[in-house]
């Protein structure tokens, strides 16, 4: 590769893309045939183009995690994302009148929430869930090789990295306890909707008897994060009534929300 200059590389790439005319192609082919040093350097660059610019294993894992997420978006297609009201694109064909009705209805709904919900303070800029969120240390073992794992990222409290990796590890047949930590990581990285989608089924399942308190608490934080006031209230009150772990925090959070 060191034996190529920029003109050579440009010429070779044009040739490989079929963009050289017949005369230039013939001249280049002759040079490749007659100059073994040039031919070897060209082969080296071609190999780099074909193999080197693809994702390495770490990036491949990240790409796979992204694809899993995209697949989940495709599967829930048709259902509008909760609490998301993106600006309509310019090619949207909704009638103007309908859009006005929708805007008025949305504004009225927000006003009513402010006036009547006991959780009106939830709309204050400082999100209480973040104040109450604390790292949940893992109970399971590290059985990894050299590669970065979701568990390592989780232990570092790099929740954004940990969340997809933990899910991927569970999907690949890893320790299903990581689902709880994926839920915690989702809460910790502000992805309330994702946390709810993981923790709600865990709470309903009777497989996680020893982790009910943790699941309930982090699910409550996820509801607070997503402004699901009723669900947050119910769950926090249940935690307070249970007088178990997180009861004090739940009471304090309720007080703050009210």
């Amino acid at each position, binding site marked *: 590769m060191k034996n190529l200059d920029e003109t050579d590389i440009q010429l070779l790439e044009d040739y490989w893309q079929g963009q050289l005319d017949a005369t230039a192609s013939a001249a280049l082919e002759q040079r490749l045939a007659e100059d073994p040093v040039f031919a070897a350097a060209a082969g080296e660059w071609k190999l780099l183009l074909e193999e080197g610019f693809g994702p390495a294993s770490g990036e491949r894992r990240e790409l796979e995690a*992204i694809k899993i*997420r995209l697949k989940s978006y495709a599967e829930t297609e048709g259902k509008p994302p909760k609490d998301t009201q993106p600006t309509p*694109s310019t090619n949207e064909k909704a009638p103007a009148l309908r859009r006005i009705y929708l805007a008025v209805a949305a504004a009225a709904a927000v006003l009513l929430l402010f006036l009547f919900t006991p959780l009106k303070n939830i709309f204050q800029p400082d999100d209480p869930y973040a104040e109450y969120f604390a790292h949940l240390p893992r109970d399971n073992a590290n059985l990894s090789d050299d590669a970065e794992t979701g568990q390592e990222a989780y232990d570092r409290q790099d929740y954004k990295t940990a969340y997809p990796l933990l899910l991927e590890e569970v999907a690949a047949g890893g320790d299903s306890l990581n689902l709880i930590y994926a839920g915690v990581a989702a809460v910790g990285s502000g992805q309330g909707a994702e946390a709810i989608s993981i923790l709600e089924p865990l709470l309903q399942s009777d497989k996680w008897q020893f982790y009910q308190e943790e699941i309930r608490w982090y699910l409550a934080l996820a509801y607070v994060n997503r402004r699901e006031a009723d669900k947050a209230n119910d769950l926090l009150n249940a935690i307070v009534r249970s007088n178990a772990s997180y009861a004090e925090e739940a009471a304090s959070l309720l007080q703050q929300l009210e």
Partner: protein
Amino acid sequence: MTDREIPEAIKRGDQRAEQYFYRENKEPCIHYACKRFFWKNKEGISIRCSPEDAEELYNDACALFIQNILKDRIDQLEIKISTYLIKTMQYFWYNKARVASKPRPESPPEEIAETAKESMRINVQRAIAQLDDKCREMMTYRYILGWEDYEDIAQATGKNNGDVVRNLISRCRKRFRELYVAVTNLSDI
């Protein structure tokens, strides 16, 4: 949410932005690919892009879009996201077609060990990460996304024309090669 806001939101880890751009562009991109992407096989028969192929191309293009944003390889798009996705899908399709129409070599090519390929990829990533923002972006379009037409890259990056991009890529590639040789020598020690 506008096309300009989406990369920033993705960078912040906002999955609603991902979901929004993924769903918003899916149908038009797949429709376009099914209508316009085709290649001719050795018998001269046109092979059209099927809806399944188009969906796969779309998912790959979206995943790479997100990853390149998260890795700071793409900063600000000067074209619509749908145009960007279609272009990327188109180059993926070209490559697929190119591989499919390539005559099989009489003797099998020399196999390179997966470990050697992996260390090559890691060294490429390290070298690209050390480039300045502009060069990282140019190398991403040209080599990671495989965009071959300099005019396409010029449009996406807001450069005047393809010649400007060609010269820029030449400079960036030179710098990249220096860095690549340096990281390869270091990793060999």
